[in-house]
């Protein structure tokens, strides 16, 4: 479905040339749900823009469903759906329903089919009460659900999602993820999801690509990544006394003043157990639990704690 | 994280003003200092992009130029307008434009389109939490320097027109001209404040004030004789633009003026303007009370 070879994008800024994407190769088969992760500024959005045809690469080739995106933008537009997290596709002052109708018209969806499709999407995304509200009156979570519905209304073959869960609360994120999972399963839509939220990846994607500073540093399954890195967490403890902490299953990876960073393996020891052990042995002022994030994993990949090769 | 603000920078140091009458004066002085700094910061921001700033300022001046061109072409084409020659009419235009520029310099951002956004986004709540008058804060934060173009061209038009119309610039006449510009500016500003106050009640409905900020001045561009008694009454008794532009022009030109609008009314102008401004201030306070009382 998607073939990318030697992809490169350089920008000319006041500070000189900035490389957004520095040579990326990958292939995505039809029906795959691929996560495209990386820290901010890593080149995720740039890659998606090139794949959707709104940015011309400096070098390299892209092929999406047999089309060259930037050259055949309008033809590709009929087969793809895009959701940019911060940009809205909907008509701001119109009721949501009207936006959907307009989208239906733009993509040539026959009226009967539109009604059926809309009903189904409204059900899946719980849009019923929102349909007659103007888009500007929706909360971010509600709007994102509406954006997704609009993007998949014309049954695109491929769906590009650029940070769709950014700024959403837990409930909204869950709704979005459930919907995407169902969409990929039931309709076989190829989905490319860019994000820097690790939970998006672990819950949705069978395959993950990590990009940092414009290069692919990981391309493989999520399980492999999780096995390799995602299993440790860190408990940050503020002690009353400045003492060493020695506990089974937890290693002190950092100490500053009265604060200790205790790293432990998720599958060996639960957070609750560790907290209990710490409280048992020491007097604690405060504590927090830190989940591993992409930045953390990227750092560790670079530190050579596992091979950054494709799976 | 090191603080980005140097201690001692910005507001005057030392203990705050005390409560009570003596404290009120000190408070006002402290408030004025705040406004000065705020306005200075706003101005610095504006001037940072000089090209845009220059274009915008020229733009407001250019609008007045086009109005004057229009007036001259029309009145000269007919010879005169209700007994007024073209330069005499341009004098009216100039006084009105200079005054309007002065008023909009401070009041433009209180217009419903912009101010309603400030209120809607909740930024106005922040303004209310500050230890200064919210109006002062709004004005100081949004000084629209580009209207200086309008003031400058208006003043220039007054000078040009006065020369053509043979105005004898005695000191009293000069004072009257300045008073006219200041009072017209005060009226425009006061209407802007009322418009802002109305925004607390209804956003869309408050657009009507534009009829007065722009319409009132447009109307003043022509001698009052041409208008029917209804319009004359409104702009004499309700929003006294006639007193701020037309009557002073009568004084400058040495005209007596029609019955009901004699040149002697110029003595009333400052008082009438102050009265209107007072009403506008009361309206503003009422608007704020409504806003705060109703919760947001």
């Amino acid at each position: 479905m998607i073939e990318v070879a030697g992809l490169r994008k350089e920008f000319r800024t006041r500070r000189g040339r900035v490389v957004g994407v520095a040579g990326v190769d990958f292939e995505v088969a039809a029906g795959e749900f691929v996560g495209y992760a990386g820290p901010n500024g890593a080149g995720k959005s740039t890659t998606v823009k090139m794949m959707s045809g709104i940015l011309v690469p400096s070098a390299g080739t892209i092929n999406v469903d047999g089309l060259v995106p930037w050259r055949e933008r309008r033809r590709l537009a009929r087969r793809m759906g895009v959701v940019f997290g911060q940009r809205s596709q909907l008509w701001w002052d119109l009721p949501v329903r009207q936006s959907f109708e307009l989208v239906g018209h733009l993509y040539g969806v026959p009226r009967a089919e539109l009604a059926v499709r809309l009903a189904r999407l409204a059900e899946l995304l719980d849009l019923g009460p929102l349909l007659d509200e103007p888009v500007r009156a929706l909360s971010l979570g509600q709007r994102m659900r509406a954006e997704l519905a609009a993007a998949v209304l014309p049954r695109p073959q491929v769906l590009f999602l650029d940070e769709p869960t950014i700024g959403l609360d837990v409930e909204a994120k869950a709704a979005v993820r459930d919907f995407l999972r169902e969409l990929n399963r039931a309709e076989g839509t190829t989905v490319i999801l860019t994000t820097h939220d690790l939970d998006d990846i672990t819950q949705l994607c069978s395959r993950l690509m990590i990009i940092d500073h414009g290069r692919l540093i990981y391309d493989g399954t999520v399980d492999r990544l999780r096995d390799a890195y995602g299993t440790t967490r860190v408990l940050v403890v503020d002690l009353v006394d400045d003492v060493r902490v020695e506990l089974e299953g937890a290693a002190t990876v950092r100490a500053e003043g009265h604060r200790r960073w205790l790293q432990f393996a998720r599958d060996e020891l639960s957070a609750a157990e560790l907290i209990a052990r710490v409280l048992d042995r020491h007097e604690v002022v405060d504590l927090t639990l830190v989940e591993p994030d992409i930045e953390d994993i990227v750092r560790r990949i670079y530190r050579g704690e596992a091979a950054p090769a494709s799976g | 994280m090191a603080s980005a603000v140097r201690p001692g920078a910005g507001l005057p140091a030392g203990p705050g003003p005390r409560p009570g009458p003596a404290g009120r004066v000190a408070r006002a002085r402290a408030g004025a200092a705040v406004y000065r700094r705020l306005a200075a910061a706003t101005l610095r921001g504006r001037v940072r992009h000089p090209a845009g700033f220059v274009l915008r300022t020229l733009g407001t001046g250019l609008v007045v130029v086009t109005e004057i061109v229009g007036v001259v072409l029309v009145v000269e084409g007919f010879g005169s307008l209700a007994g007024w020659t073209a330069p005499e009419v341009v004098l009216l235009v100039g006084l009105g434009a200079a005054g309007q520029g002065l008023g909009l310099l401070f009041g433009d951002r209180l217009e419903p389109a912009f101010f309603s956004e400030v209120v809607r986004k909740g930024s106005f709540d922040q303004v209310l939490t500050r230890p200064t008058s919210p109006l002062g804060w709004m004005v100081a934060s949004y000084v629209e320097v580009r209207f200086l173009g309008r003031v400058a061209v208006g003043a220039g038009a007054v000078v040009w027109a006065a020369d053509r119309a043979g105005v004898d610039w005695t000191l009293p006449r000069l004072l009257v001209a300045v008073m006219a510009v200041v009072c017209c500016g005060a009226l425009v500003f006061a209407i802007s404040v009322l418009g802002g106050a109305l925004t607390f009640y209804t956003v869309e409905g408050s657009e009507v004030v534009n009829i007065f900020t722009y319409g009132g001045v447009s109307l003043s561009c022509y001698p009052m004789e041409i208008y029917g008694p209804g319009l004359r009454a409104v702009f004499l008794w309700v929003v006294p633009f006639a007193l701020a532009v037309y009557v002073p022009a009568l004084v400058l030109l040495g005209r007596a003026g029609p019955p009901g609008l004699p040149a002697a009314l110029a003595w009333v102008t400052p008082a009438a303007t102050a009265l209107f401004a007072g009403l506008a201030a009361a309206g503003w306070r009422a608007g704020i009370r409504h806003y705060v009382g109703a919760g947001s």
Partner: protein
Amino acid sequence: MAPDGTVWDTARFVRAYLALLSAGFRRQATYRLALVSGLLTNLFFGLVRTALFYALYRERPEAAVGGLDLADALTYVWMVQAMFGLVWASWIWEFPEAVRSGDFVVELTRPGDPWLRQLAYELGRTFNQMLLRSTVPLLGAAALLPLALPTTPAGVLLVAVSMVLASVVAFEVRFLFGTVAFWSSDYRAVFNIGFPVLWLLSGFVIPIDYFPAALRALAEGSPLYAMLMAPVHVAVGQSVPASLARQVAWVVALGVASRVTLSLACRRLVVHGG
């Protein structure tokens, strides 16, 4: 807009843009209070200008300065009020602002023609304005004042057609100004300088018939003529076929110019990134 591999579906093509037209119309209809204050504004400025021309013609009743008599001048005044909301539309900043903020890029991910979509949407909004805000002041003035409006159905139709053509030209002029936002985020400064000139040359300050010969020639040769003075001339019955012809010519010329500009802008956007 031919779908892949199938014959060009004219019906669907037309329906899509009609849907946008209708959406624009309905959107504008939600601004009820703005309509009222717009009408009041029209009324006020119309009254002031009417008083002006009455006063001017009182001095010289038989005058036909610039070829216009009192009835023509009054017609001009109220046609300006009718055209005001169609030319200097309240949504004038939406397009350049969408470009500046980057929201416009979404249009590039859609199939179809972004320019036509914008035209359809804005025309829908314009028709809504025309329905009430243009006709009410004009008809009200016609009832109370000696205007020189046509009385035959054909004449009225021509005026309506001319107003529609003027609205399309106005859209194209606004669009061209809006494309400045592709190159400079401070597009307002350009507008601030350009508007006074447009304002005068298009005849919003005084009828161009009062201009000295050279200036009048400039104004009549410019696309601005098609935006305001053309419908005025059609209304008072002066050089009707020439005015309409000029309007059609500018609709085409500015249409091409604005589409080409958009295409260039998009190419730049797509190569350099938003």
